[in-house]
């Protein structure tokens, strides 16, 4: 048997570089962020050696005189060994190293630099290390080759990255555009940043932002929020976390937001802008908040476009949630006006929050608004009005009985909105002192005064005759006294939940599933028509002995009650109504003729 030989895979370097540089980053402007990050990390590393060192980044844009883009920092610089190890071996990034290395700027230098290949076919790095004092030039081409040479001329300690912009990306290197990008990515940095075009140098950033300083007034924070997000926020809440060392401001939005809307934030990692759309550091109920935050110790994903979801992030999120919760607890005492505006604007989110957090429910309970048959009222207002709070979980039910409840003097909550029913059930469970009950058309009917026992005899035969008529409509008869007296009859549908409602429409042998459901729970609809014993028409009706006439009037009352209850009127009901009215007219004419 021949000796087996092993071979190494061949790598198409050009393809690899294209893949990494163009597909790892979704935006061609990313190289700006990466260069800034490299520059800032290099300056930070030098500051470890010399605390007094003043970091500066100078960016020379291409002009008529020279076609190169030069990005210069006065940081620690690279040693020859660093260049071989990190700039020239793709895949040799901090991710494969231990935690200490991850804090080392050099390890991150290489992979970020690759993003420059999106805008330039060549990258030149000229560098002199503060530790080695040897000026070096590393030249790499997108084809996949590189060279290192010692420079003849001396350079100051630091690094210069020189690019030759591709034509299609020339617009990025125009002064106005580039300045905006620098401000976008670097507006939280400590280092001074200057842009040079020709002979003109312009300092575009020179000091750290106010919101990161230790003392800053709320007015200033609100002004910063307005400038950044173009929104006049209701309030600004500064915060700091231990986990992830995050520091920033939570802004309360002045307008209602949809649950599904993703808010845009400004998230910085080590003062470098990272993302706008990453929600992961905020609790998921905080839809009404925009955030400005810098974190020193959280990690970014490989593409540096969002934060890494890990345990530290989760802890930081918990701390931010606690800050927001404490704020919401305290704002009522500190600024009642803002508190009311927050409630009026964000009640939906607050309800969701109150459902998740009982402590929070305690604080907001009195002021949580609900829609009632008499307009929007706070929970306290409803409880002050009547000892028992009644609510309808179903909007159709609410529509049917809101007017009727009103005439009985009952305040009725429409709890068909998001979270309302669940919240009222939660309140009922948590606070035994409040009487909270669900109300349905049938239950409301049960609160009406029944006819007195002494009167039963006078209704016996009438009830029998009317019930006989109503059997045709799967309806049972009730006779009670209720207000308003000018309403002769009300119709209520049998209380059915959605499941029962659907099952009631199934035929037993339609399919195996219908069979399972039908055998499990036999179902028959039984609705109710309640006649008002105080109504003049009903009092007259009791004395009618003509069954033909009685049927016609009862059928008219039945359809009228359907309309009053806002139930849909189908062809069958229209026919019943028309036939009944026609019969009444014929009977009226007969009586007239027989006079």
């Amino acid at each position, binding site marked *: 048997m021949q000796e087996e030989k092993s071979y190494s895979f061949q790598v198409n370097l050009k393809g690899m570089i294209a893949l990494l540089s163009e597909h790892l980053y979704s935006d061609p402007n990313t190289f700006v962020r990466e260069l800034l990050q490299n520059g800032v990390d290099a300056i930070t590393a030098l500051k470890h050696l010399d605390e007094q060192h003043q970091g500066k980044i100078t960016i020379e844009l291409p002009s008529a005189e020279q076609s190169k883009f030069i990005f210069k920092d006065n940081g620690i610089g690279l040693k020859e060994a660093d260049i071989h190890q990190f700039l020239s071996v793709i895949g040799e990034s901090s991710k494969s190293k231990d935690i200490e290395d991850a804090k080392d700027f050099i390890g991150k230098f290489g992979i970020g630099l690759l993003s420059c290949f999106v805008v330039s076919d060549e990258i030149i790095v000229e560098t002199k290390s503060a530790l080695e004092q040897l000026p070096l030039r590393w030249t790499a081409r997108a084809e996949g080759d590189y060279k290192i040479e010692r420079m003849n001329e001396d350079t100051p300690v630091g690094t210069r990255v020189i690019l030759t912009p591709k034509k299609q990306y020339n617009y990025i290197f125009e002064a106005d555009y580039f300045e905006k990008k620098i401000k976008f990515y670097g507006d939280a940095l400590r280092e001074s940043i200057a842009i040079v075009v020709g002979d003109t140098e312009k300092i575009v950033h020179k000091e750290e932002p106010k919101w990161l300083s230790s003392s800053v007034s709320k007015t200033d924070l609100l002004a910063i929020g307005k400038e950044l997000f173009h929104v006049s926020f209701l309030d600004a809440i500064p915060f700091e976390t231990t986990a992830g060392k995050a520091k920033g401001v939570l802004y309360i939005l002045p307008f209602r937001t949809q649950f599904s809307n993703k808010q845009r934030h400004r998230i910085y990692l080590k003062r470098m802008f990272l993302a706008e759309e990453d929600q992961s550091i905020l609790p998921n109920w905080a839809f009404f908040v925009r955030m400005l935050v810098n974190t020193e110790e959280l990690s970014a994903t490989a593409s540096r476009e969002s934060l890494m979801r890990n345990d530290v992030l989760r802890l930081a999120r918990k701390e931010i949630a606690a800050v927001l919760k404490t704020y919401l607890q305290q704002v009522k005492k500190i600024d009642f006006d803002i508190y009311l505006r927050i409630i009026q604007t964000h009640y939906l989110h607050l309800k969701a929050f109150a459902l998740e957090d*009982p402590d929070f429910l305690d604080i907001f309970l009195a002021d949580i608004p609900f829609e009632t048959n008499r307009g929007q009222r706070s929970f306290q207002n409803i409880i002050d009005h009547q000892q028992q709070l009644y609510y309808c979980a179903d909007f159709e039910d609410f529509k049917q009985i809101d007017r009727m409840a009103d005439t009985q003097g009952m305040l009725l909550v429409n709890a*068909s909105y998001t979270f309302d029913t669940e919240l009222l059930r*939660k309140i009922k469970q948590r606070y035994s002192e409040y009487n909270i009950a669900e109300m349905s058309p049938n239950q409301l009917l049960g609160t009406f005064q029944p006819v007195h026992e002494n009167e039963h005899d006078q209704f016996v035969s009438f009830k029998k005759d009317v019930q006989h008529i109503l059997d045709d409509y799967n309806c049972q008869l009730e006779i009670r006294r209720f207000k308003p007296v000018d309403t002769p009859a009300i119709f209520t549908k049998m209380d059915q939940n959605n*499941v029962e409602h*659907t099952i009631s429409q199934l035929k037993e042998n339609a399919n195996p*599933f219908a069979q*399972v459901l039908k055998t499990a729970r036999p179902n028959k609809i039984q609705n109710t028509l309640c006649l008002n014993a105080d109504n003049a028409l009903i009092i007259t009706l009791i004395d009618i002995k003509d069954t033909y006439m009685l049927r016609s009037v009862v059928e008219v009352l039945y359809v009228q009650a359907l309309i009053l209850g806002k139930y849909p009127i189908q062809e069958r009901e229209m026919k019943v109504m028309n036939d009944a009215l026609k019969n009444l007219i014929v009977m009226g004419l007969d009586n007239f003729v027989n006079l």
Partner: protein
Amino acid sequence: MYTLKIQKLRNQVARVDNTLEKVNLLTQAIRIADENQDIEWGYDLRLDLISEEIDLAFSTESLPAFAWILQAYDENPELFKEEDFLWQYKWMMSELYDNPDVSREQIQAALRDFEQRLIRNGYGKRAIYNEELSDALAQKDLAAIELALKNVNALQRDDMSDCEACEMDAEVAAILLQQGYAPAVEKALPLIERQFTCAHVPLRTAVNLAYEGYKHGDIERANSMAELAEKEVFKKEKDSAILLSVIKLATYFSYTDLGKAKEWIERFLPWADGPENRSMFQLACYISEAMKNFGPHESFVLELGNQHNLFQGKNTFTASELAIHYGKLADQLADRFDLRNGNSNFRKQVTFA
């Protein structure tokens, strides 16, 4: 116009991201469609409803909605396409197996009906064997597992088969029972490396391997699987369909990190407010098992809705109260399932838990 109302409700469904609220809005829309005898809206809305409810740990509306859809199609084949609901048929077959009150005869009748519909739409029986395999796995019935696996593998995959990730995960579960831990780990590698993923995988696989790894003394792998499972849970924190996996993971934590186990149980057990079905049985077994690792007086703060089977109008429970409640529940459900299935497969699982 009622159609406008329906459309508005449907738009609202698209805007909210709370599944319970979506279901609530859809049932309101279904009411309106039914009251106006609009069968086409009733059909579309019910299909939407089933698709939403599948994201919840327990469904209550889907089975009746599906029976209604079948009836609507069979009475009006010219209005709808049978293929529209064949995938939902698979979900509903699971619902039948899940419910201990549905007899084996009723399940068989549904399987026959499903088979007819699959065949006349050009699909094979692999989807049916997928269901039989998952029932056999739930029962931990080795002979039935072997038969179902053989049937599944004898047929080509088609668009009605379970996704590749789910099928492979089912095979991992089968191998765990048939051949033991080590071959199951090997089989699971493509899933753990995320070569095949879906809504449930690799979370389910990672949780199973963390739990089994611990039981087999492979602590290192158990830890890494638990880490992977945790990452997957992070991505789906609001999706209650992960309930059984997170409770099983909490049971694993009860052996390795009691603090974490407690945190997870407090966070996720309130989600277990559904009907008494197969998932509830398994959940009850896991909670009973986890409680054995806590001191009897350890207290758990659980914010429960009044639909929850543990609801007693209070929010603090001791480990011993939870152990008694879920022990009893597992016992009762084992009896009901075994009565239905004519064997003692569920009782054996209670004994092992």
